[in-house]
């Protein structure tokens, strides 16, 4: 473990105060991300999975500097990048990029595909005007959109999959090292999703990229990542190699998530763990449950779970989990 991870997130907390009432009094805090730590090695593919409001997107935005952390730090190649000023942050943009979930609003509707991609080069003043254009068409070829057909189209004329390809081209034209993918395919149809996922895998190899892959769809994350972190209500509850997570899920929430995947074949069905159904729905991050945040829905919850937050338990080199069920062994 001597090698410095490319991206290191340590004890990250992101809280948002809530103001209410006449005097805009602070009445509470949304604990969107609470004490999350994980790291990604160069060339790694870390999958972050969790349901709505689990804090996945907030983590992504914090890494990219859109949101400022309340405490904790983020290191990139060993250097602390949380709390940077605007100027240094801007220099970092060519190293880190993000691809958004919402294909329909992530491209400015009043610009053509060519301009949309070229703007990244304009901002960083890379190459001459002609070189920039060439680079744009080269990127379009990488994402399998023939430049002669697409350069001068407006986003409105593109399908969801094509828009996402344009977004990918724009993110990669700066040759970043880390790409944060925030639900890159959840707005797309299955037949298109598969195409985009395969493209992302291919580009990762070609450009030697490191991915942080965020999704609520565990079956996608299982296929895409080598390491998976499972989030519940702002906390990381289990981290492990994707094989470990699938075959040997330790946290009851992970198990519930896996068992809820709607699978289609008998073969897959046999892999699924059999668990009792969860009660209720994901709670609110405003006043999260005490102790283990999952205890309100957990079929195995004991009285202790409501009182104290369990510590991390190491299962094997990569696999750790935070649950009292495991601690007993």
């Amino acid at each position: 473990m001597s090698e410095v991870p490319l991206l290191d997130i340590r004890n990250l907390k992101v809280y948002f105060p809530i103001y209410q009432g006449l005097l805009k009094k602070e009445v509470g805090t949304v604990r969107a991300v609470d004490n999350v730590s994980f790291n990604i090695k160069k060339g790694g593919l870390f999958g972050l999975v969790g349901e709505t409001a689990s804090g996945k997107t907030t983590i992504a935005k914090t890494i990219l500097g859109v949101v400022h952390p309340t405490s904790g730090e983020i290191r990139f190649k060993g250097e602390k990048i949380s709390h940077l000023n605007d100027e240094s942050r801007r220099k970092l943009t060519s190293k880190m990029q993000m691809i958004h979930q919402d294909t329909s609003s992530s491209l400015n509707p009043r610009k053509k595909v060519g301009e949309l991609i070229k703007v990244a080069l304009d901002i960083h003043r890379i190459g001459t005007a002609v070189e920039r254009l060439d680079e744009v068409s080269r990127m379009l070829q990488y994402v399998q959109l023939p430049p002669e057909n697409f350069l001068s189209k407006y986003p409105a004329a593109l399908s969801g999959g094509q828009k996402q390809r344009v977004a990918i081209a724009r993110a990669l034209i700066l040759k970043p090292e880390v790409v944060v993918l925030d639900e890159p395919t959840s707005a797309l149809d299955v037949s298109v999703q598969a195409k985009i996922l395969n493209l992302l895998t291919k580009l990762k190899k070609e450009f030697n990229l490191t991915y942080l892959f965020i999704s609520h769809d565990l079956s996608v994350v299982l296929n895409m990542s080598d390491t998976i972190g499972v989030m519940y209500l702002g906390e990381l509850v289990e981290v492990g190699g994707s094989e470990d997570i699938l075959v040997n899920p330790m946290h009851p929430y992970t198990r519930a998530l896996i068992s809820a995947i709607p699978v289609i074949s008998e073969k897959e069905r046999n892999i699924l763990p059999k668990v009792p159904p969860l009660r209720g729905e994901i709670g609110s991050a405003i006043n999260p449950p005490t102790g283990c945040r999952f205890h309100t829905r957990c079929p195995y919850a004991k009285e202790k779970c409501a009182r104290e937050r369990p510590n991390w338990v190491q299962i094997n080199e990569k696999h750790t989990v935070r649950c009292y069920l495991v601690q007993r062994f």
Partner: protein
Amino acid sequence: MTSPILSIKNLAVSFNTFEGEAKVIDHINLDVGEKETVGLVGETGCGKSVTLKTILGILPIPPGKVTNGQILFGDKNLLTLPTKELCKLRGRGISLIPQDPLVSLNPVFTIKAQFLDLAMRQGEEHVSRINYYRKKLNKKQTQQVVKKIITMLQKVQIPDPERVLEYYPYQLSGGMAQRILIAISLIGSPRLLLADEPTTALDVTVQKQIITLLKKIAEDSNLSMLYITHNLGVTRKIAKRVYIMYAGQIVEMGNVREIFNEPLHPYTSGLINALPKITREKFNGIDGTIPDYVHPPKGCRFYPRCPSADESCKNQRPVMIEVKENHFVACRLFQEGR
């Protein structure tokens, strides 16, 4: 199979658009049997929702237009039924569970207001103002209906229904809103439930709860259900029989397990191939995009994207053929052998 409760025969629907007439539903046939749950699977924009709206008679006309076919509910043709009869059927014969629960409740009314009006007025074509207030001010009757609503909410496992009734929709979570909508769709004791992707907007764990609930309700109350979704896994969980739809045409129909284990139509197998599986097998998408509905391919609408297409697919529309028992497919590959 007993006689179907819903039978769509040769239905064709088109829309008048800027570019011309878009033929969105192209002569489909579909049956839902008594006490049967049938899945209708297809990707975005393949005409699932239009089919559903046509059944309920809530398709906006114009720009929509039914150009051919019949929709039989029992022995009544819904397309030619007088409005009065149709009003009697909505909610009491056929009801709808909508797609996105959080936007399917009117944001400026309490749950109670919407539920109560619906429950008290179902099946009527017109409500005069006087009649409306007379009925509303009848305390005894109102109380009875409220009681009925609360029982229904308990049936869909809503905790503390009295309090939830006073809520506005934005105070609900997605799962809760969907349970309420299921309760609303059940209040008139319909015989057929039309479910329009009811779990798409929900988290997987909640999705599982809702599907279990729907299955139980359908069984307990002997309901038939037409379940529309783009999610193959969900279809497998809830339905026995499935129709696969592509670009306004039904391309394959049969037993869910049989189709998912041995898909016959190239589109079906493409879909199944595209799905990321937890066995981590390779997956691959389908090239191309859905065709333009104004000028759709003359023959098989899937032919431009089909890996096994040839010249004959271009001009000849394949007909549905029973390849195995109760397994139909519309594809040239299976026509030639016969």
